[in-house]
Protein backbone atom coordinates (compact mmCIF):
# COMPACT_ATOMS: atom_id res chain seq x y z
CA UNK A 1 0.00 0.00 0.00
CA UNK A 2 1.42 3.37 -0.97
CA UNK A 3 1.74 6.22 1.46
CA UNK A 4 -1.22 8.55 1.96
CA UNK A 5 0.77 11.41 3.40
CA UNK A 6 4.26 11.68 2.04
CA UNK A 7 6.57 14.33 3.44
CA UNK A 8 10.04 14.59 2.03
CA UNK A 9 12.89 16.67 3.36
CA UNK A 10 11.02 19.73 4.56
CA UNK A 11 13.06 22.43 6.29
CA UNK A 12 12.30 25.77 7.85
CA UNK A 13 14.49 28.47 9.33
CA UNK A 14 13.43 31.45 11.40
CA UNK A 15 16.14 34.00 10.74
CA UNK A 16 19.31 32.05 11.43
CA UNK A 17 17.64 29.39 13.54
CA UNK A 18 16.93 26.06 11.89
CA UNK A 19 13.59 25.12 13.37
CA UNK A 20 13.10 22.01 11.27
CA UNK A 21 15.69 20.45 9.02
CA UNK A 22 15.15 17.78 6.45
CA UNK A 23 12.08 16.23 8.02
CA UNK A 24 10.48 13.28 6.25
CA UNK A 25 7.63 11.02 7.19
CA UNK A 26 5.19 8.72 5.43
CA UNK A 27 1.78 7.73 6.71
CA UNK A 28 -0.39 5.04 5.16
CA UNK A 29 -4.13 4.91 5.62
CA UNK A 30 -4.92 3.73 9.13
CA UNK A 31 -1.42 4.35 10.48
CA UNK A 32 -1.04 5.58 14.02
CA UNK A 33 2.31 7.24 14.51
CA UNK A 34 3.85 9.41 17.16
CA UNK A 35 6.10 12.44 16.92
CA UNK A 36 8.05 13.06 20.09
CA UNK A 37 10.98 15.09 21.28
CA UNK A 38 12.03 17.44 24.05
CA UNK A 39 10.57 20.91 24.39
CA UNK A 40 11.41 23.16 21.47
CA UNK A 41 12.36 20.23 19.27
CA UNK A 42 10.19 21.56 16.45
CA UNK A 43 7.25 19.17 16.69
CA UNK A 44 4.52 21.78 16.51
CA UNK A 45 6.49 23.56 13.81
CA UNK A 46 6.28 20.36 11.76
CA UNK A 47 2.49 20.42 12.20
CA UNK A 48 2.41 24.05 11.20
CA UNK A 49 4.41 23.21 8.09
CA UNK A 50 2.15 20.31 7.19
CA UNK A 51 -1.02 22.38 7.63
CA UNK A 52 0.26 25.39 5.74
CA UNK A 53 0.52 27.82 8.66
CA UNK A 54 4.21 28.11 7.76
CA UNK A 55 5.65 27.55 4.35
CA UNK A 56 8.62 25.19 4.11
CA UNK A 57 11.86 26.57 2.71
CA UNK A 58 12.54 23.25 1.02
CA UNK A 59 10.98 19.84 0.60
CA UNK A 60 7.65 18.49 -0.53
CA UNK A 61 4.37 17.54 1.10
CA UNK A 62 2.01 15.27 -0.80
CA UNK A 63 -1.37 14.00 0.34
CA UNK A 64 -2.88 11.23 -1.72
CA UNK A 65 -0.67 12.22 -4.62
CA UNK A 66 -1.72 15.88 -4.39
CA UNK A 67 1.09 18.38 -3.94
CA UNK A 68 0.30 20.64 -0.97
CA UNK A 69 3.45 22.75 -1.11
CA UNK A 70 2.62 26.42 -0.59
CA UNK A 71 -1.14 25.84 -0.33
CA UNK A 72 -2.96 27.83 2.30
CA UNK A 73 -4.33 26.09 5.39
CA UNK A 74 -7.95 26.09 4.26
CA UNK A 75 -7.03 24.32 1.03
CA UNK A 76 -4.94 21.78 2.90
CA UNK A 77 -7.86 21.11 5.21
CA UNK A 78 -10.08 20.65 2.18
CA UNK A 79 -7.56 18.17 0.77
CA UNK A 80 -8.01 16.05 3.87
CA UNK A 81 -5.46 17.05 6.48
CA UNK A 82 -6.98 18.14 9.79
CA UNK A 83 -5.40 19.06 13.09
CA UNK A 84 -5.93 19.99 16.70
CA UNK A 85 -3.96 22.65 18.54
CA UNK A 86 -1.60 22.39 21.45
CA UNK A 87 -2.97 25.60 22.94
CA UNK A 88 -6.66 24.86 22.44
CA UNK A 89 -8.18 27.00 19.71
CA UNK A 90 -11.89 26.43 19.95
CA UNK A 91 -14.46 28.97 18.81
CA UNK A 92 -15.12 29.95 22.41
CA UNK A 93 -18.30 32.00 22.03
CA UNK A 94 -19.95 29.46 19.75
CA UNK A 95 -21.87 26.46 20.97
CA UNK A 96 -20.30 23.04 21.05
CA UNK A 97 -22.54 22.05 18.18
CA UNK A 98 -21.55 25.07 16.11
CA UNK A 99 -17.88 24.36 16.66
CA UNK A 100 -18.37 21.07 14.87
CA UNK A 101 -20.73 22.54 12.31
CA UNK A 102 -18.13 25.13 11.28
CA UNK A 103 -15.88 22.24 10.36
CA UNK A 104 -18.72 20.66 8.37
CA UNK A 105 -18.53 23.71 6.19
CA UNK A 106 -16.45 21.85 3.61
CA UNK A 107 -19.26 19.43 2.90
CA UNK A 108 -21.94 22.13 2.50
CA UNK A 109 -22.84 22.69 -1.11
CA UNK A 110 -25.67 25.23 -1.23
CA UNK A 111 -25.05 28.75 -2.42
CA UNK A 112 -25.47 31.94 -0.46
CA UNK A 113 -28.67 32.63 -2.40
CA UNK A 114 -29.97 29.24 -1.28
CA UNK A 115 -29.24 30.14 2.32
CA UNK A 116 -30.97 33.51 2.01
CA UNK A 117 -34.06 32.06 0.35
CA UNK A 118 -33.99 28.99 2.61
CA UNK A 119 -34.58 26.67 -0.29
CA UNK A 120 -35.59 23.14 0.56
CA UNK A 121 -32.20 21.92 -0.62
CA UNK A 122 -30.55 24.27 1.85
CA UNK A 123 -32.80 23.24 4.70
CA UNK A 124 -32.24 19.60 3.94
CA UNK A 125 -28.52 20.12 4.00
CA UNK A 126 -28.63 22.09 7.25
CA UNK A 127 -30.67 19.33 8.87
CA UNK A 128 -28.23 16.70 7.65
CA UNK A 129 -25.26 18.69 8.94
CA UNK A 130 -26.91 19.11 12.30
CA UNK A 131 -27.65 15.40 12.51
CA UNK A 132 -24.11 14.56 11.48
CA UNK A 133 -22.56 16.95 13.98
CA UNK A 134 -24.80 15.75 16.78
CA UNK A 135 -23.92 12.14 16.10
CA UNK A 136 -20.23 12.94 16.04
CA UNK A 137 -20.54 14.73 19.39
CA UNK A 138 -22.37 11.77 20.86
CA UNK A 139 -19.51 9.49 19.87
CA UNK A 140 -17.19 11.80 21.77
CA UNK A 141 -19.40 11.84 24.82
CA UNK A 142 -20.40 15.45 24.27
CA UNK A 143 -23.93 14.70 23.14
CA UNK A 144 -25.50 16.30 26.19
CA UNK A 145 -23.49 19.51 25.95
CA UNK A 146 -24.22 20.55 22.36
CA UNK A 147 -25.87 23.82 23.38
CA UNK A 148 -23.15 24.97 25.73
CA UNK A 149 -20.61 27.62 24.85
CA UNK A 150 -17.35 25.89 24.06
CA UNK A 151 -15.42 28.12 26.45
CA UNK A 152 -17.44 26.80 29.37
CA UNK A 153 -16.49 23.16 28.84
CA UNK A 154 -14.07 21.49 31.22
CA UNK A 155 -10.56 21.16 29.91
CA UNK A 156 -10.71 17.51 28.94
CA UNK A 157 -13.97 18.06 27.07
CA UNK A 158 -12.38 20.94 25.19
CA UNK A 159 -9.59 18.65 24.04
CA UNK A 160 -12.08 16.05 22.87
CA UNK A 161 -14.19 18.71 21.16
CA UNK A 162 -11.09 19.75 19.23
CA UNK A 163 -10.68 16.20 17.96
CA UNK A 164 -14.37 15.95 17.07
CA UNK A 165 -14.18 19.26 15.25
CA UNK A 166 -11.12 18.17 13.28
CA UNK A 167 -12.88 14.92 12.31
CA UNK A 168 -15.87 16.86 11.03
CA UNK A 169 -13.74 18.11 8.15
CA UNK A 170 -13.69 14.45 6.93
CA UNK A 171 -9.92 14.18 7.00
CA UNK A 172 -7.78 11.42 5.60
CA UNK A 173 -4.99 12.31 8.00
CA UNK A 174 -5.46 13.68 11.48
CA UNK A 175 -2.72 15.55 13.35
CA UNK A 176 -3.17 15.64 17.13
CA UNK A 177 -1.01 18.14 19.00
CA UNK A 178 -0.64 17.07 22.63
CA UNK A 179 -4.21 15.85 23.08
CA UNK A 180 -3.50 14.56 26.60
CA UNK A 181 -2.00 17.78 27.94
CA UNK A 182 -3.66 18.72 31.20
CA UNK A 183 -5.64 15.50 31.51
CA UNK A 184 -5.74 13.29 34.59
CA UNK A 185 -4.76 9.59 34.40
CA UNK A 186 -8.35 8.39 33.95
CA UNK A 187 -8.92 10.85 31.16
CA UNK A 188 -5.64 9.82 29.56
CA UNK A 189 -6.64 6.18 29.58
CA UNK A 190 -9.94 7.06 28.00
CA UNK A 191 -8.16 9.22 25.46
CA UNK A 192 -5.85 6.46 24.29
CA UNK A 193 -8.86 4.22 23.74
CA UNK A 194 -10.56 7.06 21.90
CA UNK A 195 -7.60 7.64 19.59
CA UNK A 196 -7.57 3.98 18.56
CA UNK A 197 -11.33 4.04 18.15
CA UNK A 198 -11.16 7.11 15.94
CA UNK A 199 -8.55 5.48 13.74
CA UNK A 200 -10.63 2.30 13.38
CA UNK A 201 -14.01 3.92 13.00
CA UNK A 202 -13.05 6.74 10.66
CA UNK A 203 -10.23 5.02 8.86
CA UNK A 204 -7.94 8.02 9.25
CA UNK A 205 -4.21 8.00 9.60
CA UNK A 206 -3.13 9.72 12.81
CA UNK A 207 0.06 11.53 13.66
CA UNK A 208 0.32 12.32 17.33
CA UNK A 209 2.50 14.76 19.24
CA UNK A 210 2.51 13.86 22.89
CA UNK A 211 4.69 14.32 25.92
CA UNK A 212 3.08 11.56 27.90
CA UNK A 213 5.38 8.66 27.02
CA UNK A 214 3.09 6.07 28.54
CA UNK A 215 0.33 7.10 26.17
CA UNK A 216 2.59 7.35 23.14
CA UNK A 217 4.17 3.97 23.73
CA UNK A 218 0.80 2.37 24.27
CA UNK A 219 -0.99 3.87 21.31
CA UNK A 220 1.52 4.42 18.53
CA UNK A 221 2.79 1.84 16.13
CA UNK A 222 5.69 3.91 14.91
CA UNK A 223 7.53 6.80 16.47
CA UNK A 224 9.70 9.59 15.08
CA UNK A 225 11.92 11.51 17.48
CA UNK A 226 12.90 15.10 16.86
CA UNK A 227 15.57 17.12 18.61
CA UNK A 228 16.53 20.65 17.61
CA UNK A 229 14.55 20.17 14.42
CA UNK A 230 16.54 17.11 13.41
CA UNK A 231 15.11 13.60 13.20
CA UNK A 232 17.30 11.61 15.60
CA UNK A 233 15.46 8.31 15.66
CA UNK A 234 12.62 6.40 14.11
CA UNK A 235 11.13 2.99 14.80
CA UNK A 236 8.76 0.97 16.92
CA UNK A 237 8.10 2.12 20.50
CA UNK A 238 10.54 -0.49 21.86
CA UNK A 239 13.32 0.51 19.47
CA UNK A 240 12.92 4.18 20.26
CA UNK A 241 12.68 3.62 24.00
CA UNK A 242 16.01 1.85 24.08
CA UNK A 243 17.82 4.12 21.65
CA UNK A 244 20.74 5.78 23.48
CA UNK A 245 20.53 8.86 21.23
CA UNK A 246 16.95 9.40 22.28
CA UNK A 247 17.73 8.94 25.95
CA UNK A 248 20.53 11.45 25.66
CA UNK A 249 18.30 13.95 23.92
CA UNK A 250 15.77 13.75 26.71
CA UNK A 251 18.08 13.59 29.69
CA UNK A 252 20.88 15.63 28.21
CA UNK A 253 24.52 14.72 27.92
CA UNK A 254 26.21 14.54 31.32
CA UNK A 255 27.91 17.91 30.80
CA UNK A 256 24.65 19.63 29.90
CA UNK A 257 21.82 20.83 32.00
CA UNK A 258 18.94 18.36 32.30
CA UNK A 259 16.44 18.92 29.51
CA UNK A 260 13.28 17.33 30.75
CA UNK A 261 11.81 14.16 32.03
CA UNK A 262 10.15 11.93 29.46
CA UNK A 263 7.08 11.01 31.40
CA UNK A 264 4.22 13.01 32.87
CA UNK A 265 4.99 16.46 31.64
CA UNK A 266 2.28 19.06 31.62
CA UNK A 267 2.32 22.17 29.53
Amino acid at each position, binding site marked *: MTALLEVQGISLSFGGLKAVSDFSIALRAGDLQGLIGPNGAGKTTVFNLLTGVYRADRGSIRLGGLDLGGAKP*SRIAAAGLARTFQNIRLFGD*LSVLDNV*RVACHLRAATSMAGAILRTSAHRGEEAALRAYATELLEIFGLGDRTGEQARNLPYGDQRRLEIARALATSPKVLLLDEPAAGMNPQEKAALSALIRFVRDRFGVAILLIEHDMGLVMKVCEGITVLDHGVTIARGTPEQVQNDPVVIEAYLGAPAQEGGGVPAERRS
Partner: protein
Amino acid sequence: MTASPWAGKAGALRPGTAAAATAGVTPFAVGLLLAAALQYAVGPAVGPFFSDLLIKIGINVILAVSLNVVNGYTGQFSIGHAGFMAVGGYAAGALTYYTSMLAWGGPQVQGGVFGVGSALFVGACLVGGLVAAAAGWAVGLPSLRLRGDYLAIVTLGFGEIVRVLLQQTQDVPFTADEARALSPVEMATHLGGSLGFSGIPFYTNLFWVWCFVTLTLLVAYRLKESTFGRAFLSIRENEIAAEAMGVDTTRYKVRAFVIAAFFAGVAGALFAHKIGTTLNPRELGFMKSFDIVIMVVLGGMGSISGATIAAVLLTVLPEALRGAADYRMIVYALMLVLVMIVRPQGLFGIREIWELPPFARRRGR
Protein backbone atom coordinates in the same frame (compact mmCIF):
# COMPACT_ATOMS: atom_id res chain seq x y z
CA MET B 1 -12.79 5.93 0.11
CA THR B 2 -15.01 8.07 2.22
CA ALA B 3 -13.97 8.88 5.72
CA SER B 4 -17.44 9.39 7.03
CA PRO B 5 -19.57 6.50 8.17
CA TRP B 6 -22.63 8.70 7.70
CA ALA B 7 -21.86 9.95 4.22
CA GLY B 8 -24.99 8.34 2.88
CA LYS B 9 -27.18 10.19 5.34
CA ALA B 10 -26.76 13.67 3.85
CA GLY B 11 -30.12 14.67 2.48
CA ALA B 12 -31.94 11.86 4.22
CA LEU B 13 -33.98 14.41 6.08
CA ARG B 14 -35.73 16.22 3.29
CA PRO B 15 -38.86 18.15 4.14
CA GLY B 16 -40.67 18.01 0.85
CA THR B 17 -44.11 19.36 1.67
CA ALA B 18 -45.59 22.40 -0.04
CA ALA B 19 -45.74 24.27 3.23
CA ALA B 20 -42.02 23.80 3.71
CA ALA B 21 -41.36 25.00 0.17
CA THR B 22 -43.05 28.34 0.84
CA ALA B 23 -41.51 28.77 4.30
CA GLY B 24 -38.48 30.29 2.62
CA VAL B 25 -40.37 33.24 1.19
CA THR B 26 -43.12 33.78 3.77
CA PRO B 27 -41.12 36.19 5.93
CA PHE B 28 -40.46 38.35 2.88
CA ALA B 29 -44.21 38.56 2.26
CA VAL B 30 -44.83 39.42 5.90
CA GLY B 31 -42.25 42.20 5.69
CA LEU B 32 -43.91 43.52 2.56
CA LEU B 33 -47.27 43.67 4.34
CA LEU B 34 -45.75 45.42 7.34
CA ALA B 35 -44.10 47.96 5.08
CA ALA B 36 -47.42 48.58 3.35
CA ALA B 37 -49.13 48.97 6.72
CA LEU B 38 -46.51 51.52 7.76
CA GLN B 39 -46.96 53.41 4.50
CA TYR B 40 -50.74 53.47 4.37
CA ALA B 41 -51.90 53.22 7.97
CA VAL B 42 -49.17 54.23 10.40
CA GLY B 43 -47.59 57.00 8.31
CA PRO B 44 -50.76 59.03 7.73
CA ALA B 45 -51.80 58.52 11.34
CA VAL B 46 -48.63 59.79 12.97
CA GLY B 47 -47.92 62.68 10.60
CA PRO B 48 -44.83 63.82 8.69
CA PHE B 49 -42.47 64.27 11.64
CA PHE B 50 -42.84 60.74 12.93
CA SER B 51 -42.94 59.32 9.41
CA ASP B 52 -39.59 60.94 8.81
CA LEU B 53 -38.33 59.52 12.08
CA LEU B 54 -39.50 56.04 11.06
CA ILE B 55 -37.63 56.44 7.78
CA LYS B 56 -34.47 57.53 9.60
CA ILE B 57 -34.83 54.56 11.94
CA GLY B 58 -35.19 52.22 8.99
CA ILE B 59 -32.09 53.58 7.28
CA ASN B 60 -30.05 53.33 10.46
CA VAL B 61 -31.24 49.78 11.07
CA ILE B 62 -30.02 48.82 7.60
CA LEU B 63 -26.66 50.49 8.29
CA ALA B 64 -26.17 48.94 11.72
CA VAL B 65 -27.29 45.45 10.78
CA SER B 66 -25.11 45.42 7.67
CA LEU B 67 -22.02 46.73 9.46
CA ASN B 68 -22.67 44.01 12.01
CA VAL B 69 -21.89 41.42 9.34
CA VAL B 70 -18.32 42.70 9.18
CA ASN B 71 -17.72 43.98 12.70
CA GLY B 72 -19.94 41.59 14.56
CA TYR B 73 -19.93 38.26 12.76
CA THR B 74 -16.55 38.32 11.14
CA GLY B 75 -14.79 40.26 13.88
CA GLN B 76 -13.07 42.62 11.47
CA PHE B 77 -13.27 46.27 12.24
CA SER B 78 -14.50 48.62 9.57
CA ILE B 79 -14.97 52.28 10.43
CA GLY B 80 -15.63 53.44 6.89
CA HIS B 81 -19.23 52.34 6.54
CA ALA B 82 -20.40 55.87 5.74
CA GLY B 83 -17.99 55.83 2.81
CA PHE B 84 -19.92 52.96 1.23
CA MET B 85 -23.12 54.75 2.10
CA ALA B 86 -21.83 57.80 0.24
CA VAL B 87 -20.81 55.73 -2.77
CA GLY B 88 -24.25 54.12 -2.97
CA GLY B 89 -26.10 57.33 -2.27
CA TYR B 90 -24.30 59.32 -4.93
CA ALA B 91 -24.52 56.55 -7.51
CA ALA B 92 -28.26 56.12 -6.97
CA GLY B 93 -28.93 59.84 -6.65
CA ALA B 94 -27.06 60.59 -9.87
CA LEU B 95 -28.92 57.81 -11.64
CA THR B 96 -32.41 59.04 -10.72
CA TYR B 97 -31.51 62.71 -11.07
CA TYR B 98 -29.98 62.49 -14.51
CA THR B 99 -32.49 59.94 -15.79
CA SER B 100 -35.33 62.17 -14.64
CA MET B 101 -33.69 65.15 -16.30
CA LEU B 102 -33.23 63.35 -19.58
CA ALA B 103 -36.52 61.44 -19.63
CA TRP B 104 -38.94 63.86 -18.00
CA GLY B 105 -37.17 67.19 -18.32
CA GLY B 106 -36.90 67.76 -14.57
CA PRO B 107 -36.22 66.03 -11.27
CA GLN B 108 -39.84 65.87 -10.11
CA VAL B 109 -41.22 62.66 -8.65
CA GLN B 110 -43.07 60.62 -11.29
CA GLY B 111 -46.07 58.52 -10.27
CA GLY B 112 -47.04 57.17 -6.84
CA VAL B 113 -45.57 54.52 -4.58
CA PHE B 114 -45.69 51.96 -7.41
CA GLY B 115 -45.31 54.39 -10.33
CA VAL B 116 -42.68 54.48 -13.04
CA GLY B 117 -40.56 56.82 -10.95
CA SER B 118 -40.53 54.34 -8.07
CA ALA B 119 -39.37 51.63 -10.43
CA LEU B 120 -36.47 53.87 -11.39
CA PHE B 121 -35.84 54.60 -7.71
CA VAL B 122 -35.82 50.98 -6.61
CA GLY B 123 -33.56 50.14 -9.52
CA ALA B 124 -31.30 53.00 -8.47
CA CYS B 125 -31.18 51.68 -4.89
CA LEU B 126 -30.03 48.32 -6.17
CA VAL B 127 -27.49 49.93 -8.48
CA GLY B 128 -26.27 52.05 -5.57
CA GLY B 129 -25.90 48.87 -3.54
CA LEU B 130 -24.00 47.14 -6.31
CA VAL B 131 -21.64 50.06 -6.89
CA ALA B 132 -20.95 50.20 -3.15
CA ALA B 133 -20.45 46.42 -3.13
CA ALA B 134 -17.92 46.78 -5.94
CA ALA B 135 -16.15 49.45 -3.91
CA GLY B 136 -16.25 47.09 -0.94
CA TRP B 137 -14.64 44.38 -2.99
CA ALA B 138 -11.94 46.73 -4.26
CA VAL B 139 -11.14 47.93 -0.74
CA GLY B 140 -11.59 44.61 0.97
CA LEU B 141 -9.62 42.33 -1.29
CA PRO B 142 -6.24 43.91 -0.57
CA SER B 143 -6.81 45.17 2.95
CA LEU B 144 -8.55 42.20 4.52
CA ARG B 145 -5.24 40.39 4.55
CA LEU B 146 -4.23 42.90 7.19
CA ARG B 147 -4.86 42.54 10.88
CA GLY B 148 -8.00 44.04 12.38
CA ASP B 149 -6.74 47.37 13.58
CA TYR B 150 -4.96 48.15 10.33
CA LEU B 151 -8.17 47.39 8.51
CA ALA B 152 -9.88 50.01 10.64
CA ILE B 153 -7.44 52.62 9.43
CA VAL B 154 -7.70 51.57 5.78
CA THR B 155 -11.49 51.76 5.88
CA LEU B 156 -11.31 55.12 7.55
CA GLY B 157 -8.87 56.25 4.86
CA PHE B 158 -11.21 54.91 2.21
CA GLY B 159 -14.08 56.94 3.63
CA GLU B 160 -11.92 60.05 3.56
CA ILE B 161 -10.81 59.40 -0.02
CA VAL B 162 -14.45 59.12 -1.06
CA ARG B 163 -15.24 62.36 0.71
CA VAL B 164 -12.33 64.23 -0.86
CA LEU B 165 -13.16 62.98 -4.34
CA LEU B 166 -16.83 63.87 -4.00
CA GLN B 167 -15.94 67.32 -2.80
CA GLN B 168 -13.98 67.90 -5.98
CA THR B 169 -16.93 67.23 -8.28
CA GLN B 170 -18.59 70.04 -10.24
CA ASP B 171 -21.96 71.67 -9.74
CA VAL B 172 -25.07 69.74 -10.69
CA PRO B 173 -26.87 71.12 -13.76
CA PHE B 174 -30.19 72.71 -12.91
CA THR B 175 -31.98 72.45 -16.23
CA ALA B 176 -32.68 69.59 -18.58
CA ASP B 177 -30.77 71.34 -21.36
CA GLU B 178 -27.65 71.64 -19.23
CA ALA B 179 -28.01 68.01 -18.26
CA ARG B 180 -28.36 66.92 -21.88
CA ALA B 181 -25.16 68.72 -22.76
CA LEU B 182 -23.22 66.40 -20.45
CA SER B 183 -21.80 63.06 -21.48
CA PRO B 184 -22.35 60.16 -19.04
CA VAL B 185 -18.76 60.48 -17.85
CA GLU B 186 -19.24 64.17 -17.22
CA MET B 187 -22.39 63.43 -15.27
CA ALA B 188 -20.32 61.32 -12.89
CA THR B 189 -18.12 64.35 -12.26
CA HIS B 190 -21.03 66.74 -11.73
CA LEU B 191 -22.26 65.70 -8.32
CA GLY B 192 -22.42 69.01 -6.52
CA GLY B 193 -18.99 69.11 -4.90
CA SER B 194 -18.66 70.39 -1.36
CA LEU B 195 -21.91 72.34 -1.60
CA GLY B 196 -23.84 69.13 -1.91
CA PHE B 197 -26.03 67.38 -4.44
CA SER B 198 -29.45 69.00 -4.26
CA GLY B 199 -32.50 68.27 -6.35
CA ILE B 200 -32.51 64.47 -6.07
CA PRO B 201 -36.22 63.55 -6.31
CA PHE B 202 -37.81 62.56 -3.00
CA TYR B 203 -38.82 58.99 -3.69
CA THR B 204 -37.96 57.51 -0.31
CA ASN B 205 -41.05 56.59 1.66
CA LEU B 206 -41.95 54.26 4.49
CA PHE B 207 -42.90 51.42 2.18
CA TRP B 208 -39.65 51.16 0.29
CA VAL B 209 -37.47 51.81 3.32
CA TRP B 210 -39.09 49.06 5.33
CA CYS B 211 -39.04 46.69 2.39
CA PHE B 212 -35.28 47.10 2.34
CA VAL B 213 -35.15 46.79 6.13
CA THR B 214 -36.94 43.45 5.81
CA LEU B 215 -34.51 42.34 3.13
CA THR B 216 -31.50 43.36 5.23
CA LEU B 217 -32.75 41.67 8.39
CA LEU B 218 -33.65 38.46 6.61
CA VAL B 219 -30.39 38.26 4.72
CA ALA B 220 -28.40 38.99 7.87
CA TYR B 221 -30.32 36.52 9.98
CA ARG B 222 -30.42 33.70 7.48
CA LEU B 223 -26.75 34.03 6.72
CA LYS B 224 -25.98 33.95 10.42
CA GLU B 225 -27.97 30.74 10.80
CA SER B 226 -26.33 29.08 7.82
CA THR B 227 -22.97 27.56 7.12
CA PHE B 228 -21.84 30.97 5.81
CA GLY B 229 -22.67 32.69 9.07
CA ARG B 230 -20.85 30.03 11.05
CA ALA B 231 -17.84 30.53 8.82
CA PHE B 232 -17.98 34.29 9.49
CA LEU B 233 -18.26 33.75 13.23
CA SER B 234 -15.43 31.22 13.27
CA ILE B 235 -13.11 33.86 11.79
CA ARG B 236 -13.99 36.22 14.57
CA GLU B 237 -13.52 33.55 17.20
CA ASN B 238 -10.21 32.19 16.04
CA GLU B 239 -8.87 32.92 12.61
CA ILE B 240 -6.14 30.29 12.65
CA ALA B 241 -8.50 27.54 13.74
CA ALA B 242 -11.09 28.66 11.19
CA GLU B 243 -8.54 28.42 8.41
CA ALA B 244 -7.44 24.99 9.71
CA MET B 245 -11.06 23.79 9.55
CA GLY B 246 -11.18 24.63 5.87
CA VAL B 247 -12.70 28.11 6.04
CA ASP B 248 -11.00 30.25 3.41
CA THR B 249 -10.78 33.22 5.75
CA THR B 250 -9.71 35.86 3.24
CA ARG B 251 -12.51 34.90 0.89
CA TYR B 252 -15.11 34.95 3.65
CA LYS B 253 -13.90 38.28 4.96
CA VAL B 254 -14.21 39.77 1.50
CA ARG B 255 -17.69 38.27 1.20
CA ALA B 256 -18.77 39.80 4.49
CA PHE B 257 -17.31 43.10 3.44
CA VAL B 258 -19.10 43.07 0.08
CA ILE B 259 -22.46 42.17 1.64
CA ALA B 260 -22.10 44.93 4.21
CA ALA B 261 -21.08 47.45 1.56
CA PHE B 262 -24.05 46.50 -0.59
CA PHE B 263 -26.54 47.30 2.14
CA ALA B 264 -24.67 50.44 3.13
CA GLY B 265 -25.02 51.50 -0.50
CA VAL B 266 -28.75 50.80 -0.42
CA ALA B 267 -29.07 52.78 2.80
CA GLY B 268 -27.16 55.62 1.15
CA ALA B 269 -29.57 55.50 -1.79
CA LEU B 270 -32.58 55.65 0.52
CA PHE B 271 -30.99 58.53 2.39
CA ALA B 272 -30.23 60.38 -0.86
CA HIS B 273 -33.89 60.27 -1.93
CA LYS B 274 -35.31 61.21 1.46
CA ILE B 275 -37.34 64.40 1.80
CA GLY B 276 -35.10 67.25 2.79
CA THR B 277 -31.77 65.61 1.95
CA THR B 278 -29.08 67.56 0.22
CA LEU B 279 -26.46 64.91 -0.26
CA ASN B 280 -23.28 66.34 1.21
CA PRO B 281 -19.92 64.58 1.46
CA ARG B 282 -19.28 66.08 4.88
CA GLU B 283 -22.39 64.51 6.35
CA LEU B 284 -21.20 61.09 5.25
CA GLY B 285 -17.76 61.40 6.79
CA PHE B 286 -16.26 59.43 9.62
CA MET B 287 -18.58 60.94 12.20
CA LYS B 288 -21.41 59.10 10.49
CA SER B 289 -19.29 55.95 10.39
CA PHE B 290 -18.67 56.26 14.12
CA ASP B 291 -22.41 56.64 14.73
CA ILE B 292 -22.97 53.30 13.03
CA VAL B 293 -20.07 51.66 14.86
CA ILE B 294 -21.54 52.82 18.16
CA MET B 295 -24.89 51.20 17.29
CA VAL B 296 -23.21 47.88 16.54
CA VAL B 297 -20.96 47.95 19.58
CA LEU B 298 -23.71 48.91 22.01
CA GLY B 299 -26.20 46.45 20.58
CA GLY B 300 -23.78 43.59 20.73
CA MET B 301 -21.31 42.57 18.11
CA GLY B 302 -22.90 39.72 16.23
CA SER B 303 -26.46 40.28 17.44
CA ILE B 304 -28.93 41.36 14.76
CA SER B 305 -31.66 42.20 17.22
CA GLY B 306 -29.12 44.02 19.38
CA ALA B 307 -27.92 46.16 16.49
CA THR B 308 -31.53 46.84 15.50
CA ILE B 309 -32.56 47.92 18.96
CA ALA B 310 -29.47 50.08 19.34
CA ALA B 311 -30.14 51.67 15.94
CA VAL B 312 -33.71 52.50 16.96
CA LEU B 313 -32.69 53.90 20.34
CA LEU B 314 -29.80 55.93 19.03
CA THR B 315 -32.02 57.42 16.30
CA VAL B 316 -34.84 58.33 18.65
CA LEU B 317 -32.67 59.52 21.54
CA PRO B 318 -31.14 62.57 19.81
CA GLU B 319 -34.61 63.66 18.70
CA ALA B 320 -35.84 63.37 22.25
CA LEU B 321 -32.82 65.19 23.64
CA ARG B 322 -32.65 68.00 21.12
CA GLY B 323 -32.09 70.54 23.88
CA ALA B 324 -28.98 68.73 25.03
CA ALA B 325 -27.46 68.28 21.58
CA ASP B 326 -24.05 69.47 22.81
CA TYR B 327 -23.93 66.63 25.25
CA ARG B 328 -25.21 63.90 22.93
CA MET B 329 -21.84 62.81 21.63
CA ILE B 330 -20.28 63.11 25.08
CA VAL B 331 -22.90 60.72 26.40
CA TYR B 332 -22.32 58.35 23.45
CA ALA B 333 -18.59 58.46 23.97
CA LEU B 334 -18.89 57.74 27.68
CA MET B 335 -21.30 54.91 26.93
CA LEU B 336 -18.82 53.42 24.48
CA VAL B 337 -15.99 53.48 27.01
CA LEU B 338 -18.18 52.20 29.84
CA VAL B 339 -19.68 49.40 27.78
CA MET B 340 -16.21 48.23 26.80
CA ILE B 341 -15.16 48.13 30.44
CA VAL B 342 -18.34 46.74 31.97
CA ARG B 343 -19.91 44.65 29.21
CA PRO B 344 -17.43 44.37 26.35
CA GLN B 345 -19.62 42.08 24.27
CA GLY B 346 -22.32 44.78 24.06
CA LEU B 347 -25.92 44.51 25.15
CA PHE B 348 -26.60 41.06 23.70
CA GLY B 349 -23.20 39.73 22.64
CA ILE B 350 -23.68 37.46 19.66
CA ARG B 351 -27.01 36.27 20.99
CA GLU B 352 -30.38 37.38 19.70
CA ILE B 353 -32.86 38.86 22.11
CA TRP B 354 -35.07 35.75 21.96
CA GLU B 355 -32.12 33.58 22.93
CA LEU B 356 -31.63 35.42 26.20
CA PRO B 357 -33.02 34.29 29.55
CA PRO B 358 -36.35 36.07 29.87
CA PHE B 359 -37.38 35.03 26.36
CA ALA B 360 -35.55 31.81 25.72
CA ARG B 361 -37.45 28.59 26.05
CA ARG B 362 -35.63 26.25 28.37
CA ARG B 363 -33.80 23.95 26.08
CA GLY B 364 -33.11 20.41 27.18
CA ARG B 365 -29.42 19.91 27.62
